[in-house]
């Protein structure tokens, strides 16, 4: 595994992040205006989905999800029976982690003769997000990435390899995506840098904070309004005692409306002994999380669980959300989160249940051997024998 943090990095020349966000917002508003003008117009709903996806994912504007749901609703009122509506509904449901609904819409789209390639692409995303048939997904992803060479296909392959704990391969594929990028939009570059940050901060068994921080900084360098990158980098700074740096990173992210920014800011302030300042942010984060969970329960169940397991200080709610997340998308990572929360809150019975379920579902997969759950399982078994 390459341990040199990004030695071959040369930042691609991309449009300034500020300009790109202004232009994205401008295109987003115009696409909605055209949709209102003529909702049946070819490609316009699809353009909205793309613009809102970028807005949610890279600018951190969570209200984009509300707008997407409104789009799906409006399309269903206008043309409920069409394959195109079903495809959009499937994408929106998938983006908000309503995977069962997404599959239902997809089946409808298929029945109505939606383009097979589109259906397969969305189904593959859903399978990957839910940890279903990952080996089959890997073959498909490799084939697609080889054929198209497009950055988004390489990133999807990298993410799947990371899910399968093939971290060196994931790193290689992400770097390949960056190396081969020949466009000027900063969004894809920032996205890959963020994925690399996640890989080295949160997915590998032994996190490399400096290496991850480097990638998060690069993501922010490309796209200063990349809320998620700011939050994750702030976490690294805060955990290494650089709480003022964390605070400076998070303050501009508050306007995005992402409650995690307030939560992490509160954590940084608490570390600085500014309890009173933190209190307001923590309260606002709790209110905002609950509001989000009310509207998009499945999309934010894992984030909510993490919040309540931490400064949100409500382990019961944390476990409830984590188990909901497992039921919705039984990935190895979802099991790990639920187990951690149950175990750390002292609910050994729930922890054992989660572990048993995880083993049934993932025990035979190669990835399980590098999961902390495997070690936990061995410890439990030894304890039982002793």
């Amino acid at each position, binding site marked *: 595994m390459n341990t040199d943090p990004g030695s071959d990095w*040369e930042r*691609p*020349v*991309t*449009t*300034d992040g*500020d*300009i*790109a966000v*202004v*232009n994205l*917002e*401008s*295109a*987003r*508003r*115009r*696409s*909605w*205006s*055209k949709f*209102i*003008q003529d*909702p049946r*117009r070819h490609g316009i709903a699809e353009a909205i989905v793309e613009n809102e996806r970028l807005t949610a994912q890279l600018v951190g504007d969570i209200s984009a999800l509300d707008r997407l749901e409104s789009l799906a609703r*409006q399309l*269903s*009122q*206008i*043309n*409920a*029976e069409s394959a195109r509506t079903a495809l959009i509904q499937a994408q929106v449901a998938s983006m908000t982690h309503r995977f069962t609904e997404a599959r239902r819409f997809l089946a409808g789209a298929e029945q109505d003769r939606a383009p097979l390639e589109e259906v397969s692409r969305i189904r593959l995303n859903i399978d990957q997000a839910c940890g279903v048939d990952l080996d089959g997904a890997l073959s498909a992803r490799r084939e697609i990435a080889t054929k198209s060479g497009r950055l988004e296909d390489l990133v999807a392959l990298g993410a799947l390899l990371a899910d399968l704990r093939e971290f060196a391969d994931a790193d290689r594929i992400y770097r390949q995506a960056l*190396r*081969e*990028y*020949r*466009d*000027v*939009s900063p969004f*894809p570059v920032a996205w890959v840098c963020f994925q690399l940050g996640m890989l080295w901060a949160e997915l590998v068994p032994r996190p490399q904070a400096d290496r991850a921080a480097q990638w998060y900084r690069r993501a922010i360098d490309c796209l200063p309004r990349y809320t998620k990158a700011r939050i994750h980098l702030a976490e690294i700074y805060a955990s290494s005692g650089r709480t003022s740096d964390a605070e400076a990173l998070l303050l501009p992210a508050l306007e995005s409306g992402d409650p995690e920014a307030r939560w992490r800011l509160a954590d940084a302030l608490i570390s600085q002994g500014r309890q009173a300042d933190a209190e307001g942010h923590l309260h606002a984060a709790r209110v905002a999380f609950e509001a989000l969970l009310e509207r998009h329960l499945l999309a934010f169940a894992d984030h909510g669980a993490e919040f309540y397991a931490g400064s949100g200080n409500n382990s019961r709610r944390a476990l409830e959300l984590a188990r909901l997340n497992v039921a919705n998308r039984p990935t190895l990572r979802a099991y790990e989160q639920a187990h951690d929360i149950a175990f750390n809150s002292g609910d050994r019975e729930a922890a054992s249940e989660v572990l048993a379920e995880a083993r049934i579902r993932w025990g035979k997969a190669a990835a399980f051997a590098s999961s902390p759950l495997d070690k936990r399982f061995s410890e439990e078994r030894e304890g039982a024998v002793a």
Partner: protein
Amino acid sequence: MSDHIDGPRQIGDPAADLTDLFAFTSPENPSRTVLTACLFPSAGADAMFSNAVSCSIVVRRASVAGLGDAAQFRTGDQEIRFTCRFDLLERAPGAKPVQRGTFTLPDGQTLRVVVNDKNGASTPDGIFRIFAGLRSDPFYLAWLFANMRPIPNLLEHDNVLCIVIEFDTRRALDTDKGSLFGVIAETIPLAPTSPVGPLPLRLDWVGRPEQTNMRLNYGPGIEDIRDLWNQQTPFAIASEHRGMFLQRLKESFAHWDMRDNKQDWTPSALDANARVFLDDYLLFDVAKPITDTSHLEIEKSTINGRTYETGGGRTVDSNVIDILVTWLVNRDREFLRGGATRATKPGTTVFPYFAEPNMELQDIAESVDLDAAPDRVWTLIGQFDPSWHPLVASVRMIGSGIGQLRIIETIDGKQIVERLEAADNSHRSYSYSNISGLPVSSYIGALEVNPRGSGSSVTWRSQFLPNDQPDIVVKAIVTTLFKTGLASLKSRLGDSR
């Protein structure tokens, strides 16, 4: 569209996506020529230029190298190149961000310009004048090509980013050496995106309108070669690809010829047409008149075996799609007119000649789900007569069919006049414009009924620009009108919830 979103790769950064190229005689001064490149399809009100892209307009001297079935044009090797690059945004508290650009002129001079400054900038000797900024999209496309049906302009109310260059024709182009030129525009990333590996690829380029979306990518199910085309070097298509592109154009033109089920092109003329269009640059002759109808005349006359009579080029108001479609489908036997005869705003006679950008329209959309079957609902509300609406006291209808007027007296004594613009009983929908009575302009409303489960769904939408009153007030007026009407349907026909 002309060159709008003309390949998967352009979709990456819309500010690198060239939409159109123009070459025309200055409306202010016939001794001057204007070249313009447009970027960013459907740009919103705040759109800015990319700071990572250079946009060039490149002119080469051209000549006729053959007539009739041997029609061909040649271009010289020397380039007259105008290049512009843009800076980062300058931000000041409480003010809109400002962007500046730098134009490099063919003689190496540079000229700075503030984006959206309609006065632009000029060289001290006045030979060159430049503008960069948001303008109303001059392009219009009003066809549904799948069935050759005229439709309203698909780009109504769109804006684009424009780069306008005006110059003294004789001094900038040295017309003593000839008056026929070919011009292209291209966007290129500023620097290599990687220190190793291949050089940066061209992002986009454009010559004549619609080389990519209509001619190369002429129908569903064919391999998309637009990205490959966009990466070719203008004026020098790679020899290893020429045959493939030529074959595609021949197939495309044969396909277009039969769109009206009549063959107007002989195989040899069709081949000549394909060869001429393969060399994709916009031809213009500064010694002849360039008018709203002269677009493609140079190519068409040459293919027809005649000496061309106009300056070709492309003016702001050229109806380029109808001109092209007519040529491809019936070789000018009968002019084919789309559903619009002008863009949202026509060109102007003063610099920078492209109309002010369209303001952002306000949108309203309200809907209601009903128990009643769609046909029953449509019977009640599908006629343009709005007597069913509870806020309507009386209605007088004038005329019938498209263009019909409804003069509405509201229960609070106001009069609203509206015009039927389109009606489609098979889709249970109609659209209308507001003539007077609401504090709005550019108002378009649409009402439609769709099946939903065993009942129906009624959607009422509108877009408009508020006049004289704050947006929020006008939106409240229109929303109240819609909501009250739709709520009345619930009580008459049953709420599906």
